[in-house]
Each structure stands twice: as C-alpha cells, then as structure tokens.
C-alpha cells in the first residue's frame, strides 16, 4: 500500500553520494503495483539516477497525471514535493510550476493513456514550449486500472487478453516528439537498467524538453503471447542503435571507445554525455535522418532504443519568453508593483 512507509533500515556500509545520502534515502513508499510491473523497474532506475546525480530531494518536483504510471511518484524520493494531478494534465501543472520556479528540477511521470489519449493536447504543447523538464512515458500499451483496454500506443495486430487484435494506427511518442521539435528524445525498456539510468540522467540535466518513451510491460493485462508490449516480444525485437554514458561535470571521459562511433555532447551544467553508436549510420542530431531511420526500422518490426535525438541549442521556455533568472515565485510582491504614486499617473490616462 502506498501509504505504508518503507522501513528505513540502516546499513552502515551502504555507499553514500556527495550529499551523504544513500540510495535508500531516495526511495518512497512501498509500491502498490503488480509484482513484476515494468514501472517498478523504472522507479528503481530513477532512484539510481538521482542518487548518482547528487540531487537534493527537496529541489526536485515530481508530477504525474492519473493511471498506474502516475502512481509511481509516491514510490521514489519521499523528500521531494509531488503532485498527482488530473488525468492527462501533468504537462500543464508542470508548465505552471516551472513558470513560477525555474530553479527546481521537474520530473513528470505519465503513461501511454495519460499522454497519448486524454492528455495528447497537453503533451504536444509542452513540447512546443520547450518546457525544461524530464517527461517519462511508462508505455505498456494498455489501461491497467480499468482492466486492460488498449491505449493509443498499441501496435497494429497486437492481441489483447480478450477480444480482437488492434487495427488502429498507434501513436508513437518518439516520432511525435521528433516532429514537434522536442530537444532530447530517448526510448528504452524497463528491463534495461544499464541503458535507462544514463538516459534518465541526461534527460534530467538537459535544458529543455526531454522525452523518454520507456516500454514497460503490464504483467497483468499485456504480457501474453501476441502482445507487442510483452517482456518476451520487447526482448526479441529490441535494438540499441545508440547508447550513452553520462560523465559528471569536471570529470574526464575515461572509458575507451571505438573511433568513429563516439560522439561526446556537453550539457548546460558542464556534464557530458558520450554517445556510442551501435549503428554507424545513425545521426542523433538530425531530425530528418532520425525520423527516416525510425520509420524504416519500425516498419521492419524493430524497437529502436537509445538517445535518438538531441539538440542542446534551442532556448527553453523561460528564455523564449525573456524572463528574469530569479524564480518568479521568489520575487517580493512589493517589488512587483508600480512605484509609489504611479497609480495617479496611470489613471490620468483614463480621464
């Protein structure tokens, strides 16, 4: 039950990060999701990422909509502020929160129903604004809490537990985001923590809208034979085209890489991500090429993963608006009023 707090068992030898916190300190309440749910693996990857990034928990805001995925912010970072909002409306709450306080780190957790059906409008408009946030879609192709209806990400031909196979075109979050100009787009799999953790780190530190589409099988309603979002199907058709490593600020790139396939990119805070291309042809800085590649591979039935697109050059929402650096919520109200006596002068214009 999510209201049962996890007992904090102290292991003196647990590794601590630069803030002196252990990974356990980044945990939340006990998950109430089904045993084996992909979402719990993603929660674990988030915890690992924020622990390793030395994030002060109270300087991060975790926001969600409604659905199984949207329950997960209770399962990580109990010392972070959370906002479990309305179905499909996580992006607007995050937009307003970020508009008011640009200094916090924003992590939005959503699902395929939450983002691609009821909340499709808010999802795409947050991208247009290049809202500075990490937006995760925990994608299982079904509605779990209402017992297994297909969502808009269900693939053509995918079979439900009961009833007929899906015949409608799926909405692919990655190509949607690519077409709308999201500035950091990754896809991964809940079962691939090694790939997922650095992707999350990069997404959190990227300045702008970072989308992670994470295939996260629903063990109860969509993990059977014939489903294209099952563990077995995902493992079989899953391809890394581009992997990444995260290198903190002021650290050297130590690992040795094959020449030609390596691409280091510096993030705004001085940290770096090193992209390792598994497929030499792939260019994660070209929207057109990325789009073509994704289409071709997805038509061939492959699930393409990794950091699929990155653009560190586009200004985020506040810079597009020309806002002050100080969070608006921290400006003293007195400083926001016209000067003393000014009302008299303003009203003269209405005489």
């Amino acid at each position, binding site marked *: 039950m999510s209201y049962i707090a996890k007992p904090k068992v102290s292991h003196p030898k647990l590794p601590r990060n630069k803030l002196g916190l252990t990974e356990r300190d980044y945990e939340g309440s006990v998950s109430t999701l089904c045993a084996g749910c992909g979402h719990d693996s993603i929660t674990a990857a988030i915890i690992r990422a924020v622990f390793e990034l030395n994030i002060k928990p109270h300087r991060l805001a975790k926001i969600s909509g409604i659905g199984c995925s949207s329950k997960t912010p209770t399962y990580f970072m109990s010392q972070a502020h959370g906002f479990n909002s309305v179905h499909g409306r996580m992006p607007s709450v995050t937009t*307003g929160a970020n508009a008011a306080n640009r200094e*916090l780190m924003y992590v939005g957790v959503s699902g395929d129903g939450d983002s691609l059906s009821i909340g499709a409008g808010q999802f795409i408009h947050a991208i247009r604004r290049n809202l500075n946030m990490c937006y995760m879609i925990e994608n299982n192709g079904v509605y779990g809490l209402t017992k297994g209806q297909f969502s808009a990400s269900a693939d053509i031909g995918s079979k439900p537990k009961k009833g007929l196979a899906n015949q409608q075109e799926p909405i692919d979050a990655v190509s949607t985001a690519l077409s709308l100009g999201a500035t950091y787009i990754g896809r991964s799999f809940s079962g691939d923590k090694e790939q997922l953790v650095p992707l999350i780190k990069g997404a959190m530190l990227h300045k702008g809208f970072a989308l992670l589409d994470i295939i996260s099988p629903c063990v109860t309603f969509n993990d059977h034979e014939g489903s294209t979002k099952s563990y077995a199907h995902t493992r079989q058709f899953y391809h890394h085209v581009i992997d990444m490593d995260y290198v903190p600020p002021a650290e050297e790139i130590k690992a040795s890489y094959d020449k030609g396939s390596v691409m280091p990119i510096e993030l705004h805070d001085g940290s770096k991500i090193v992209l390792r291309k598994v497929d030499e042809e792939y260019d994660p800085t070209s929207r057109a090429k990325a789009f073509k590649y994704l289409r071709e591979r997805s038509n061939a039935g492959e699930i393409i993963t990794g950091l699929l697109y990155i653009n560190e050059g586009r200004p985020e929402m506040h810079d597009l608006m020309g806002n002050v650096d100080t969070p608006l919520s921290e400006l003293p*109200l007195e400083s926001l009023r*016209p000067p003393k006596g000014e009302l008299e002068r303003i009203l003269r214009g209405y005489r």
Partner: protein
Amino acid sequence: MAAVNDVVIKIATVNGTGSASANGLLHKAIFRMGVPVVGKNFFPSNIQGLPTWYEIRVTGDGYQSRSNRTDLMVAMNAQTYAKDMAEVTPGGWLVYDSTWPRGQLLDRQDITVLGIPFSKLCNENFDGVRTRILLKNIAYVGAIAALLGLDLKIITQLLEETFGDKKHLVASNMEAIRLGYDYAAEHFQCPLEASVKAMDSTKDQIIIDGNTAAALGCVYAGATVGAWYPITPSTSLMDGFRSFCAKYRIEPETDKRTYAIIQAEDELAAIGMVLGASWMGARAFTPTSGPGISLMTEFIGLAYYAEIPAVIFNVQRTGPSTGMPTRTQQADILSCAYASHGDTKHILLFPADPAECFTTAVQSFDLAERLQTPVMVLSDLDIGMNDWMVPEFEWDDEYVPDRGKVLSADDLDQMDKFYRYLDSDGDGIPYRTLPGTHPKGSFFTRGSGHNKLGGYTEDGSEYQEVVDRLLEKWETARTLVPKPEIIYSTFNNAAILTVGSGNGGCKEAMDRLASKNISLNYCRVKAFPFSEEVKDFIEKHEVVYVVEQNRDAQLKTLLMLDIEADPAKLVSLLHYNGMPLNAGFVVERVLAEIAKGRAA
C-alpha cells in the same frame, strides 16, 4: 423625455468600419465637459460587416445603468434603418445619411428626421476608400456635437491626445468634425431641446472598462503568472495585464520580464498552469468566460480538495453553449459556486463596476492564499468590456499582501515533522509549504483521498474528517469575504437584493420608486458564501425582490442553499435577454408585484 443633460444617443453602424473610436471620442467629450455619461457597446460576434450599436446616456444625475430610451438615433447602417427608426422614443430625433434618398423608410410622424449627406461630404473632401469610411464616422461626431452643443475645443484636444505627433491626422479628423458640425449647424436648429451643458460632476472620475481595471489589480496584487485561452469577453483582461506588465514588469538592469503570460492550448491547460504556479508559491490567475469554466471544472475540484490557491476571473456572457458571446448575463453563478464533481463549493466575488474590479482583483489573491482555495471573480461582459465612469481607484502604499499560512525554511527547521492538512489553529485552514523550501516541507499533493496528515487513504472516517474540516474552512471564509452593501431608507418591509452589475439599475429604480412613494431597502451581495449581514437583512424583511440577470434565479437558489433564506420572501425579478439591466425593468416589475398585492 429628453432634456438638458438627460439624453440617450444611439449610433448604429457596421462593425469593422472604425466607428468604435468615433463613439469613444463622443463619449469622452461629454465626460470632459463634466457631465456624467454611460456608454454601452452592443456588438456582434463578428469581425467585419455586421450591425453594431453604441449607446451613450448623458445623465446629469449620475446614474450608472443604461436607459431604455433612445432620444437621438444616428442611423449610419442601411441594413438596420427600419429597426433603428422604430426604436426612437416619440419626440426624439433620427439622423441618417441623406446621400441616398430613403423615402418611405423614414416615415414616422412622431419624431424628427434629420438628413445629413455624410458620404457625399466625405467623398467630396477626402481621398481613398478607407479614409472616407473612417472619416464618415468622425463626421457624425461633428454633427452630434452641433446638435447637442458639445464643446469643439474639447474634441480637438482629445484628437490631439489620441494622435500625438501625427498632426496631419488631427487636421483631417478635425476637418471631418467640421463637415458634420457645419452642415448640422446650417440646416437645423442647434442645439436641440435635448442637449449637453457643461457641469462639474466628473471630477475625480475616470472612464475605464472592468477588464482593464481587473488587469491593473492583478499587477498591484503582484501576480506573476497569467495563463489563459482567448475567449470573449475576457480577452481584454489579459491584453490589459500584458500592456501594464510591458511597462511595469521589466527589470531595468537586464531588460528581462518579471512575469510570465502563457497562452495555453485550452482552458483545461490554463487552469492546470495556474495551479502549478500557485503550488510553487506564485500569485497566478486565469481570465475566462462560461465555456472556459466548464472545461476547468475537473481541476477546480482538485484545487478545492488539495487546497491550492487560484484566482479565476469569469467575465460572464450569455449562455448556454456558445450562446450570445457578445452579450451579457449573470448565469454562471451556480455553475461557479459548485464547479466540479463531488462535494465542492467555491468562493465567489462579485464586483459591481470597474472600480470594484480593481479592488476585488487584489482582494481575490489575498483570499485565495489565506484560504488556500480557488477564488472566482464573477464579472460580466457589461462590466468587463464597457467603458464606465467610476471614481478614481485608490491605492494604499502601506498595503501588505496576505500570503496566508506558508511555512518558511526556518519554521520547518524548528518543526519535528510537517503534516499538510492538520488544522492546528482551529479555523479550518492548515499550513502549507512551497516546493524547494526545505526537505521537511515536502509532501504529496493529490486529488485522491487523503487523511489529515496528507497520506493517501481509502478509509471512510479519515476521508470524512478532511472534508468536514473543509466545511469549517468555509465558515472561516464567510467571515473574511467582503460584506454586502446595505442601504436602509425609511422603515419598510420590502427590499431589493441584487448582485454585480445589477447595482446601477436597481439604485436608479429605487430613486424612481421613491418618487412614487415606494421606498425600498437595498442589499447588494459582494461575495459567496454569504455573510451574516445578508442573512439578517433577508430576515428583517417581508419581501425581498431578488434582481439578477439569468433565467433560473440562480442567486435566489444560492441564498436558499447557503443561508436557508425563506423562499416565500424571495421574489425573483429576472432579466436575461443579454442586454445590461435598466432601471425601467425593475420599476415596472416591482410595480406589477405591488399591484398583485405584494408588500411594498
């Protein structure tokens, strides 16, 4: 009947032809002559080509509402000649463009028809189609100036203020004024019996619309985040906020903005943004109208239950559905009072005019933060978009905003543990923390069932404890919201009770009824929940005429629901055709009730 400083002028034109500025010029000129004036714009939901009317009531007595007379009709739109002529009050005047003969169309014996060849005059004197159309409007201002005896010096001065350095525009506009003025002066007896004589009754008054006033209130309240989706008649509120911010919210050292205006994809997103920003501690607001409120209701329920401040301006228009988007009404009272599913109720504030829009806007942020709940300011199209003459706004530089119960990092440092929904002061209002302040202040904001500690719950008694506490907060709100305006005349059993823009029409009606020896007491509610004073007022009277601008007696319903007002006492006088309330309606209905044997 029309008389000196008691004249109603109505100008019929085609929208999109620039008549709005001509009408504004006329309105302002009379005001500058020191004569109180009421302006009402009746415009179509359209950009160009449909009929539009502007009504100017010259009221030496200083009444605030429109009149149901038309003394001088300026019929500039051939499409509506017949209707416009029929509307002129017997004994009145009709001015029309006599460039083309109108024959029998203008046949009415009980009025005086004055033909002025505006098109011909302008075609002879100006070049260019657009210029001729624009200046034709200015020419009728000139003709009216002659007919009513307006001061040409004031008109010249207003044109100079409008056009500033563009001297050629002042000259061409003055030429057009002269064409109309001279033609009227030469051909007719000027001024008419109904005319305007300078007074000294507009000192310390301004002419402003409610949306601009509310926008200025938001600036003074320190609002930093405005999220909205464009919708008539609320759009000019955000336009106003934007232009004030462009002037007063730019950091001089960096040239950067200390405000964020976000044009949302729809009203669902607009309110979501407001809640996100308020959750972070900014003063945030959204202006909208009825259809927008409908879309916002799910989030409004969350804000009520999760206790997040929000300021929502609902500039009401005529519903249901798209309805008549450019006409006024007060028909969202119930849908706002109980917006959302489940047990919810919300604080409503009812400004009566633009001056109150300014003060109410500031107050709405204080109340929203004090009570940690949405506050809706219910204005309407009449208040929001029409130019009203109101007293100059006052601002106390000593004003200290009420940010409510927000714990600082120091407070949290000294606390053992923070629980979001504990009522430690017994007023139903818990303490809140702002994200990012302190690790101890973190909590989970949710619309799902929660207990008084802030934890998730599906336990009935834990759930009920929280919603019962919200009722205690509601009672605290009752003591904090603005008190009604109450006027007792002489001792009597009957009273008028109204809300918002009903104010002007009702007060004028009371004067008129008093002249017939019917004196009524008066109560104008300024907020929901209703304060004790409203309850006492109703209890004191045998009959209370509830005047409101909707079909279903929504205010009356709310009085019955919230303070259990006795329905037997409440007599509804309902005005809901989309036009602003006029005193004549109230007088007529009250007299009809009295004729039926109702107490006066």
